[in-house]
């Protein structure tokens, strides 16, 4: 037992500055301190929150620039050659934590996680900006979001299954309170459903992790070590079962059809920033789990069952799009388009498993597209949910038929929504196209029929989103009538004439950065792809090396 401790301490790498840990834990520390701000100074809370999120984002950007320049490579333990452009893990921190369990405090970033870390930092910052006027329990609100930020960042940099699992479950806890306390409608019920459903999903995940632990020799929960060992390579049955358990856990969180039913009510009743984090960050924990854990640790089973993932992805794409088309509630509609968008990711990752052996170029494209889609969906759907929040603040309902001709009274609102909508339907020039083009192009050879069918998804989303635009923003002016209002809120006179109904500065400042970034990625994607591609390569090499 003692010898294991020494093994851990030998490989412990203490970098000069534990920058990653600082980035991860800064928000929760500030959040705890925020609870001490006296009631009289509650106005300060919003600004401290914004400042913290901004500092964190600044650090992540610095980290990105440094990593892209070849910095932060500790090398060695990752089993991959250090150096720029190799997709190796950087800024590693590793020390013994629960040595008897073979679990350590192991963190690091690579090209798969860094875009999501940056997305997380950005989305939490825009939520802070959006919430600067939060009236209902502002201290607890800010503290909870900062806690959730730490949890989310921590998950994306985790290189240990136990660490990953803890962050995975804590995110559910944090989001439960956000929906239950600051939501509307039947928030408590939706929050509970969300909690129970995703929590049960996480148990399947844990089961899979334990199988991996027991199969490894020496027993470990360390992701890097597990990838090196490939513990179940000689046991296809157990490997398949482990993949099944892990995939169910991740599929619930992603979510894919048929595990998605918790998502629409959770979104509909969540407050706008809660929806942004739920869609932009929490859903990515599911898809990220596939590229971080399922594919590299179980490459053989992944290749064997890749067609299953392709089909699950395809079903999610078409089912999500079609059900979204039938929605009358704006937020529910966006929630179902999320199911559709997540479907492309699963489809691409499955196709990458099929293509890894025969056409690595196509597999790389599909994986790169899938990771790009995670980022892109966060930006575009984040923007859409903030806009939905702005809509609700004015009209007090999400029913699309209640609105009409909004472009007249609120041109900025209409313009930003149009950009987000076209991004969401995959228009070139925005990030969604870069993602979906790579997924489709990379997947077609390996899975021709499912990919061709999945193309219908972008057509259906185009139809339903443009229908929404036509109904709510163009045509004659319509306003919510008294009976359409969900709560006994004051009548909404703000939308009709002049600018007061248009986006306020805090709303503009929170939505616009997301869309600007979506356009930057859409037009000049290299800065992002330079980061993702090497990591996608490394992943595909791992998958291709395993026997299916």
């Amino acid at each position, binding site marked *: 037992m003692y010898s294991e401790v020494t093994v851990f301490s030998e490989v412990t790498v203490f970098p000069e500055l534990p920058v990653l840990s600082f980035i991860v834990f800064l928000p929760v520390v500030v959040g705890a301190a925020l609870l001490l701000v006296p009631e009289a100074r509650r106005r300060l809370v919003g600004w401290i929150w914004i400042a913290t999120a901004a500092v964190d984002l600044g650090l992540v950007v610095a980290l990105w620039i440094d990593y892209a320049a070849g910095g932060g490579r500790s090398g060695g333990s990752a089993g991959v050659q250090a150096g720029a452009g190799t997709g190796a893990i950087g800024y590693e921190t590793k020390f013994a934590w629960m040595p008897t369990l073979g679990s350590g405090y192991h963190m690091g970033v690579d090209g798969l996680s860094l875009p999501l870390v940056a997305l997380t930092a950005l989305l939490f910052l825009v939520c802070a900006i959006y919430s600067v006027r939060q009236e209902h329990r502002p201290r607890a609100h800010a503290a909870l979001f900062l806690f959730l930020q730490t949890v989310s960042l921590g998950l994306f940099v985790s290189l240990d299954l136990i660490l990953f699992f803890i962050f995975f479950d804590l995110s559910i806890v944090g989001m439960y309170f956000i929906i239950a306390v600051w939501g509307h409608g039947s928030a408590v019920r939706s929050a509970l459903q969300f909690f129970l459903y995703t929590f049960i999903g996480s148990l399947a995940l844990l089961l899979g992790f334990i199988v991996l632990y027991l199969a490894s020799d020496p027993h470990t929960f360390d992701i890097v070590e597990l990838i090196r060992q490939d513990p179940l390579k000689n046991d296809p049955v157990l490997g398949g079962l482990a993949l099944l358990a892990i995939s169910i856990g991740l599929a619930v969180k992603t979510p894919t059809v048929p595990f998605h039913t918790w998502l629409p009510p959770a979104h509909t009743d969540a407050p706008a920033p809660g929806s942004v984090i739920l869609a932009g960050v929490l859903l990515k924990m599911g898809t990220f789990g596939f590229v971080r854990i399922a594919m590299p640790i179980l490459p053989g089973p992944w290749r064997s069952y890749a067609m299953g993932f392709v089909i699950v992805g395809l079903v999610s794409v078409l089912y999500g799009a*079609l059900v979204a088309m*039938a929605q009358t509630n704006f937020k529910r509609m966006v929630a179902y388009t999320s199911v559709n968008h997540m479907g492309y990711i699963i489809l691409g990752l499955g196709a990458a498993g099929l293509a890894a052996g025969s056409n690595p170029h196509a597999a790389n494209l599909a994986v790169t597209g899938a990771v790009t889609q995670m980022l892109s969906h966060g930006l575009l759907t984040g923007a859409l949910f903030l806009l939905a929040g702005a809509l609700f603040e004015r009209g007090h309902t999400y029913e699309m038929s209640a609105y009409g001709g909004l472009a007249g009274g609120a041109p900025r609102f209409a313009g930003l929504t149009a950009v987000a909508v076209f991004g969401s339907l995959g228009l070139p020039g925005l990030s969604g*196209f870069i993602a979906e083009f790579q997924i489709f192009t990379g997947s077609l050879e390996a899975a021709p029929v499912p990919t061709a069918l999945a193309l219908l998804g972008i*057509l259906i989303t185009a*139809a339903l989103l*443009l229908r929404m635009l036509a109904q709510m923003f163009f*045509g004659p002016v319509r306003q919510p009538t008294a009976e359409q209002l969900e709560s006994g809120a004051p009548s909404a006179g703000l939308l009709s004439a002049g600018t007061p109904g248009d986006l306020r500065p805090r709303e503009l400042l929170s939505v616009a950065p997301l869309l600007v970034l979506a356009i930057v990625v859409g037009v000049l994607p290299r800065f992002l792809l330079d980061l993702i591609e090497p990591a996608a390569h490394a992943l595909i090499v791992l998958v291709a090396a395993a026997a299916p």
Partner: protein
Amino acid sequence: MVLWLLILLPALAGGILLLSGRRANAAAAPLAVAVAVALLGLAVAATVLRPAVEVPALEGIPAGLAVDGLAALAVMTVSAIFLAVVVFSSADIGRQEARARFFGLMLLFVAAMLITVTSTGTLTLLGSWEVMGAVSYALIGYWWPDAGRVKSATLAFITTRTADLGMYLAAGAALAGGAAGLRLDALAGMPSGWRDVALAGLALAALGKSAQLPFSFWLSHAMAGPSPVSALLHSATMVAAGGYLLLRIEPGMAATGWLGAAVAWIGALTALLLGAVAFAQRDLKQLLAASTCSQIGFIVLAAGAGSVVGGGAQFVAHAAVKSLLFLVAGAWLSYLGTKDLLELRGVARGGTHGSVGGYRTAGITFTLGVLALGGLPPLSIWTAKDAVLAGVLRQSPALYVVGLAAAAVSAAYAAKALAVVWAKPQPAPGKRRRALPTAVLLPMPVLAAAAVLLGLFGVPSIGKWWQEFLGLPNIGGPAPWELAVSGLVALAVTVWIYCQQTRRLAGEGTLLGVPAAGGTGLSGDWLGLEHAATVLISRPTMALAVSLARFDDRMLARSVDAAAVLVLKAATLTDLRLERRLSGAVGGLTSVVRKLARSARRPQTGLIYQYYAQALIVMTVLAVLFVVMR
């Protein structure tokens, strides 16, 4: 550098105008005209210099642009037509309109078209292609408070995007087939299978964009936009882009061995049937729209039959003619308030009700344009069409006959429009015409001159230069008898229909091809294509969506709820059946223990003699046990 400027100048100017919003309304038109002038200069430079650029985009898939002969032709045409349309718009789009939005979108639109025609690979092509579609959506729905126009815009976008899926498919097929960098010129060399998928996908996208059968109906709706939008969309961009793309991928289509013929037949049938649709219209803009499908059909036919030179000529000639006709029709609509053919009677005569500025000019240029459209010799479309048909005849006589019939139909609808605008004017008492502004009139003579003079390509020496300019193999022009046949057919049909229509107007005052009883025939209704799409595709899809949503709510979500309820029930049951019994059992055990304890307390009486007695009994028992055990 030239190429970058050509793309970035309109894109950035458009972006700035859109971002500035209403503030930029005043500056919008001058800025757009200035950019258009610069673009024309850049287009000339690009034609001379033939630049090419390539930047890395996706892994192994660069973004490449290049100007070759065909692209130079398109770039020149697009820039010239754009300038004409923008000058017209500066007067046509009034000061009370959202001019910054209009000109910003127009600039973005032309930037997308310029990227489309210079794209070397599928990535940039698909990107600009779809952006062009989206901007056309915004332009068609420019007057968004009118829900009908927005619906038209949506329909146009969705219909073209349906066909665009072919291009996504083509990109994947190009990768699978190993086309380096997904380059268009590498498609022909791929192994069959993926090659055929890639080219068929591109062809599908092109047929959708150029409103060929069965996609034609969206173009009818595209009329909902402002007239300059129609003028640009129908002539040198969007619709024409489909024909252009087919010309570009002609070598690949030929390599498949079957796609060329299929595409050629679609083009020929569109030319014929949509020509009939044009003839059946009572609305001038609808007539022109249907004629666009028909005329682009000749480009499609050319591409399918391997007659790229003729297709290129038709591209240029049709662009000049159609933009001219739409501008004149737009001027009449804006300044006379009508596009109904019966109300436009005699509009070309100009000065009959006292000379009011410009109507004579508009009428004469319109006449030249319509004559060219009808394929009358020696005007531009006559020579272009014959160059197309010459190539077609070598491929298939049947196609040639259909093409010739389509040419006759073109002459018919052109003659119908001509007869109407030169008919005896409708007396319109008290209705004063407003003078046409200079900016509206300015492009008309220039475009009319182009519509006429482009016929010079029929002159053999110029035709030869034209082929060398395009960098295409010399396939020989039409034989003299072919020129004579098509010219005579056009002339005869024109004269016949002109006389018929003039007599009809003088007598009953009705239009040829339009049912007198009112309503529209099958041709008037664009062959019922939209109805078919609604019944066969939109409605079933929506019904499927609704039933899936119901399934999602009632079955899937409920089953999760039911599972939760089941767990709750199981818990209650456990509580009732197991937990209660367990606790009952535990309770029983404790009561037994308690009883035992109680009885154990009984000997403890506190009386010493009783303790002695107890001790004596115990000792005796132990002694007996000791003896027995021994």
